């Protein structure tokens, strides 16, 4: 529990802005993560949270969406959990290549491919009782909490991170 933050919000679309705000302010105030990567994280969180809200809403019950942020050496992780009926991420339909005129028929299904290209690591844990999605960014901590005089480091992301994108 020492360095983790947990946020639990009603499964209503109006709360998604607060989730983005919390995750991005936490990541930007406290981590050696470049500005541009904060935008990537915000977008990834928004996509996954949209799916979690929809999964919960479709159960007709009042389950919250639970967002947990962990700060560990060398990484910042966000886990978004719903109590929906689950899905198999390996069975998602493939999109036609972007040059295909049929591209226009895909108003949905853009989310998870987008998330994959935004974060350094993406993991799903899904069961009929709910889904947890982990978003991981690499990047070392800005400073130890005790040292109040040190400035926030904004180092460029690691080589691995860059290669993934």
């Amino acid at each position, binding site marked *: 529990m020492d360095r983790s933050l947990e946020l639990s919000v009603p499964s209503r*679309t*109006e709360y*998604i*802005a607060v989730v*983005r705000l919390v995750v991005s302010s936490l990541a930007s105030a406290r981590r050696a993560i470049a500005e*541009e990567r904060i*935008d990537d994280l*915000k*977008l990834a969180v*928004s*996509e996954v949270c*949209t799916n979690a*809200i*929809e999964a919960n809403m479709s159960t007709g019950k009042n389950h919250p969406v639970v967002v947990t942020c962990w700060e560990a050496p060398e990484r910042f992780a966000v886990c978004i959990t719903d109590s929906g009926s689950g899905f198999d991420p390996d069975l998602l339909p493939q999109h036609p*290549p*972007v*040059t295909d005129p049929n*591209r*226009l028929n*895909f*108003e*949905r299904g*853009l*989310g998870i*491919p*987008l998330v994959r*290209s*935004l974060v350094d690591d993406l993991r799903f844990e899904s069961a009929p009782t709910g889904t947890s999605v982990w978003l991981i960014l690499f990047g070392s901590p800005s400073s130890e909490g005790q040292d109040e005089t040190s400035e926030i480091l904004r180092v460029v992301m690691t080589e691995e991170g860059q290669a993934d994108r």
Partner: protein
Amino acid sequence: MELGLEVDESRPPYTVLAVAGEIDVYSAPRLREKLVELVSQGHRQIVVDLEKVDFLDSTGLGVLVGGLKRLRSHDGDLTLVCTQARILKVFEITGLTTVFRISESVDEATKA
């Protein structure tokens, strides 16, 4: 935060819809309604100005793609105005830069 939606009809045949704020699953329905309304009112050349948009996710992309399809099926078109790197990036990653005409200004988008 509510989405800002301003319609400017002073540049016929173009109708400029200036969007301000964050386009996500909460706000996207308002944008969809506005586009549907404009098309049903007979507007056929719609320019969506995204310069004041702070955030756009795939729900917003879906609405824009939906608007484009609706307009094309009426022999119209939907053009975007966008120069912000972080917004352009979303179109690039999803390959939608090849689908939309993206202009650098409303003037450019509404040139005869």
